[in-house]
């Protein structure tokens, strides 16, 4: 794809004798909303971990914004514009919500060339980001005071604070109620409208189907489908993987 934002070529990852990912090819275009699905253990999170630098892939090449990512460690990739939320929220539990947001502003946004937010601008931006996820009134609270859905929102707000070009939302809705899922979906839609390309890793099919413009299906470390959502779920291999023969 000529205007690909992210281009993954033949990516492979093993854990000892276990092949977690095998020859994954994937492109993500700018502005896209890509759904990444697959049964448990199919390698979705491993793929995100390899792309974000948490794990190092053994084979294959990843190009982001025309730059090869090989050898770059996680924080360098974040600074390039790759952000992620974690499947299990990982807030900085000893810091207030505002400080949770300040960290990406100080360490990612201010570390980029041509950016230097003043202390006042950072404080303002923290409040803005927290109010986007309706957490502004809890800015001085610690994460332990949050509910599960609020924790997910904090996780997203912290990822968004890095001003990413591409955001991986790793099961941002797991364990949430129907209305809470709608809330998170609306939030992700708005972020996409603001120009952030989003890869959504999710098990909740209704959410994935309504959100994604394209669907990629992983099974046992292989990509078995990459198509429009409606086409992808009718793919016989996908049906087999999810429903059995």
């Amino acid at each position, binding site marked *: 794809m000529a205007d690909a934002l992210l281009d993954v070529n033949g990516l492979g990852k093993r854990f000892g004798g276990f092949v977690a990912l095998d020859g994954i090819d994937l492109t993500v275009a700018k502005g896209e909303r890509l759904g990444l699905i697959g049964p448990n253990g199919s390698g979705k999170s491993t793929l995100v971990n390899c792309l974000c630098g*948490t794990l190092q892939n053994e084979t294959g090449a990843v190009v982001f914004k025309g730059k090869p990512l090989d050898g770059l460690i996680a*924080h360098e990739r*974040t600074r390039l514009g790759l952000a992620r939320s*974690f499947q299990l929220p990982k807030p*900085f539990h000893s810091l207030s919500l505002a*400080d949770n947001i300040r*960290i990406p502003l100080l360490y990612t946004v201010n570390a980029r060339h041509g950016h230097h937010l003043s202390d006042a601008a950072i404080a303002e931006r923290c409040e803005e980001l927290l109010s986007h996820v309706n957490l502004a009134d809890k800015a001085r609270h610690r994460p332990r005071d949050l509910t599960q859905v609020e924790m997910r929102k904090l996780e997203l707000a912290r990822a968004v604070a890095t001003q990413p070009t591409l955001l991986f939302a790793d099961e941002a809705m797991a364990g949430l109620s129907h209305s809470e899922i709608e809330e998170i979906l609306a939030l992700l839609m708005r972020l996409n409208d603001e120009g952030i390309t989003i890869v959504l890793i999710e098990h909740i099919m209704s959410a994935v189907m309504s959100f994604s413009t394209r669907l990629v299906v992983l099974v046992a470390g292989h990509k078995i489908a990459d198509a429009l959502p409606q086409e992808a779920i009718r793919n016989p291999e996908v049906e087999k993987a999810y429903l059995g023969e």
Partner: protein
Amino acid sequence: MRNGVFWAILVATGLVFVVVSRLTIANEYFYYAGYVVLEYIVLATAWNILGGYTGYTNFGTGAFFAAGAYSSVVLFKLPALLLATFHWKIPAIPVPVMIAVGGVVAGLLGLGTGYLTLRLRGVFFAIATLALSIVLQTLIVNWGFVGGSRGTYVIRPPAAPLGGGYIQYLFTLMVLLAVIAVGIARSIERSRLGLGFHAIRDDELAAEATGVPTLRLKLISTTISGALMGMAGAPLPYFVTYLTPTASFDLAYAVNSVAMPVIGGMTSWIGPLIGAILLGTIQQLGTVGFFLDLKLDPTFNLLIVGLLLILFVIIAPNGIVGLVRSWMGRRET
């Protein structure tokens, strides 16, 4: 409070403390005991930069402390060595220079240790630092130039700078070091660096994902922490005048520099300060037999530390600072 104001108050407090004690207290023992308590303020504060802020438990305080002490021994013996081998005459090296060199040596040791061990987390990192202490002690024991296992005499100069006895001079230097250590800890706590340290302590993966260069920050943390410990150890040869490896690598340094921040509170600069003053003073009183009335042996002072440590870990895991904060929080609501 702004950083500049805090530094000014801190320096003024140190100055007043030195002047007032010089004017009012003539008993040399006060300066000996005070020196030890101040030394623990530096060690506990330094330990807390890595242990409290960054979340890496260091049991190798003795190694960094002794690195400072033994670099001073080398510098002390250097003029004689140069005279004997090259017929170069250089004057005796003043203690403040030794402190600076001790800081650099221990800081480099911290950097190197960090580079080798920071892939280890939790208890494994702690074990590695303990091992560092043992390895370094073995090296010193086998190094004849600095006295080997026999130890070495370090003769104090006949006259002390700044007037008064030599112990008063060392005491003044240790006040200065305590001021520097506490000032650095407080500055870090309120800075971008401190926020990065906290992020690493809370969750290293999340810290990386939000752009924190964790390896670099951990190396900065081990280097600053190690350097301050080395600076605290540098005047030790002049303090004891007869330095042995067992004395300088004493496990009490490691135990105390862990216990003091834990008891005082690890989240803030004031925690190690409170812990060091409290535990340091109790131990000094114990050493001179203050508790003899209770029919306790003076060597029981480490037992007191152990008991307090257990007590605090169970009752107040956030230390005295945590207790006060939760008490104040309850009053507000």
